[in-house]
């Protein structure tokens, strides 16, 4: 009898232990660390609020936050428009739908590292494919990765290409929940395709759109490997994302305490943004 009572606890205890060591303790320790200075090889040193003072004077950190916002501002709308459009197309009665869906989805499963190396070549100033195409149709070359005003947009473009397949699939699922008789009723009243889309489809898939926004936001906040490989954060710090800067502070300069402070601050911002977004979704319901 006792064994039966103990069993559930036995089953969950490995997880709780894991949680305590790898989640709970780190969160607490992270806060403690923000008040210390540490470079891994020397003992930790208490420095009070110095890290926070430094954070608020740190122009580069601010830049990294702004860059992350710029990335989101370009990437999310682009993603939604393209994904929704392609999902709508795929939702029609077409042959080989499976093939097309698989093709769009291909970049999603491939590692971000591969996509970045690939697009680094495409974006090359002298011999990259895009600039060559531009030159053959008579336009000027663009400094995709060398122009500080364009670089982040280029990365957002690449990120959209990589992820849009996933969102096409999610939208497809959402589109298929719209009852067919709504469309039939509208057709009887002579509605055009566009009218059907904006009056019926869009409102019905609002929940899916919100979900896509929230997922893309969380994903966008973790932007790291793309700028790391592609530009190292340049030119002129226009592509350094928040996570890249936090990584640099911790594992390039070994300012562990300061890096933990940045990480903590950034995590709070993310939580705030996601909470606001979820509130927005709830209100709409």
């Amino acid at each position, binding site marked *: 009898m006792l064994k039966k009572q103990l069993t559930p606890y036995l089953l969950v205890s490995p997880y709780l232990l894991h949680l305590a060591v790898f989640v709970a303790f780190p969160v607490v320790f992270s806060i403690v660390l923000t008040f210390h200075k540490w470079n891994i*090889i020397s003992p930790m040193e208490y420095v009070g609020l110095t890290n926070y003072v430094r954070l608020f004077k740190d122009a580069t950190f601010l830049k990294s936050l702004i860059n992350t916002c710029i990335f989101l501002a370009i990437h999310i709308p682009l993603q939604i428009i393209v994904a929704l459009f392609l999902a709508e197309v795929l939702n029609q009665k077409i042959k080989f739908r499976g093939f097309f869906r698989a093709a769009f989805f291909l970049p999603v499963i491939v590692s971000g590292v591969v996509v970045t190396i690939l697009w680094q070549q495409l974006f090359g100033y002298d011999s990259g494919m895009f600039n060559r195409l531009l030159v053959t149709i008579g336009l000027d070359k663009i400094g995709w990765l060398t122009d500080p005003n364009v670089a982040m947009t280029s990365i957002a473009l690449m990120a959209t290409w990589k992820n849009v397949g996933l969102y096409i699939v999610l939208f497809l699922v959402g589109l298929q929940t719209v009852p067919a008789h709504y469309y039939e009723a509208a057709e009887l009243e002579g509605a055009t395709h566009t009218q059907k889309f904006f009056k019926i489809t869009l409102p019905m898939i609002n929940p899916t759109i919100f979900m896509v926004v929230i997922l893309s936001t969380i994903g966008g906040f973790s932007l790291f490997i793309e700028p790391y490989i592609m530009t190292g954060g340049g*030119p002129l710090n226009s592509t350094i994302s928040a996570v890249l800067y936090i990584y640099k502070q911790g594992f390039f300069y070994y300012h562990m305490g300061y890096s933990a402070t940045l990480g903590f601050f950034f995590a709070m911002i993310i939580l705030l943004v996601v909470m606001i977004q979820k509130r927005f979704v709830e209100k709409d319901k």
Partner: protein
Amino acid sequence: MKRSYYYKNIILLIILAVILIALNSCGNKNERKGDSLIYWSSNNTQEIEFANYITEGWNKNNPQQKVTFQPVPEGQSSEEIILAAVVGNTTPDIYSNMWQGDVEAYAESGVLVALDTLAGFLDFISTRCDSSVITEITSEDGHIYQIPWKINPIMLMYNVNSLKDIGVNKVPSNYGEFFSSSAKYQKDTDGDGYIDRWFGYSEVLVTWWQRFFDFYPLYLAASNGANLVKNNKAVFNNEYAVQVFKFLREMYEKKYFPMERLSARQDPFLTEVISTRFTGPWEIIHAEKYKPKGLEYSFAPMPVPNNHVGPVYTYGDPKNIVIFNTCPNPQSAWEFIKYMIEEKKDLKLLEMTMQLPRRKHIEINPIFQEFFKSNPKMKIFAEQGNYVRGTDTAPVLKEVFDLISQEYEACVIYGIKTPEEAVAAAAEAVDLLFIDKAK
């Protein structure tokens, strides 16, 4: 049935534990053979040969204290490997490829042996180094944790014949001469509207270590070896840094230096696309191997501002030897190092690796004369060796150079800040780095 079920579980757990332990011991760990000392050399082929030569010679004469050497394990960079070794407590006893800029951080954390506490060290070091070098390698706490081993001074490599071709009789030594020679050399040889011959070249990389090949040697030359940081403050916000920024900015603006990455093509110096280059003695081996017939080259000191007086300093990229505190017998380790860097072995180092020992007055030392006669270009570097600076004593040098690089990018490469603004901004950012020490 229940019994066997439990046993099965226990066996499963044991297998799991064994796998975990096996996984944990995967990876390079130090193998101490008996009580021999472990010496890590760099993994450069010639240096491995040299290390082999040294350890064999030592072990023959000192069987009671053997030394085993291995090249630094492969990784992203040897600095990372050393850091991982320090963190994981798997450091070797002796390491000879330590960049001078890394030493202070390790010294402060106590993982290095204070060499001045070892018998015979202080006497030896004053025969090898002059007083300015000794000051340079002394840490903030007054102890010495490193032995200068070798340097690779950065100098101006130039194409002798192409200078004559444009009517320049003496290699340019200051900024003014540099500009006028550059103007003469600049050409658009294939008429496509884009310049394809430039007087010189420096990578437009923002990476922190790229400054060792442009900004830093020029700054040391202009300022007679001044510090970048001292006593936890930035001290480079001065006319010298501004002049260097101005010089480089003008070179890029007037297209005397290319903005393109020439490194992806064939060697631009050997194909005479450029006529000069800021580089070190390692270039000699490469040039001798690949130079086309008739190409003559030589080396000269870095250019300086027009109003400069005094000797021309430069950056020496010093690599030093350290003893980690995991070493069971530091005194013996010191004897081994002494064996490795005495005069005849220094000569061997020169012969085998073409790298310059950091030894005072090496250019007039009789033991090396034969070598310099057959390698006159190395003599130029040896003479420069008297006016070489390493790095300042600060535990955050990488970040200092990174911050300078960011302002370098804004001013020199993109021209959106004036040299004065850029240097001031860099100094301000560096001061912010030391914010907690200032208390």
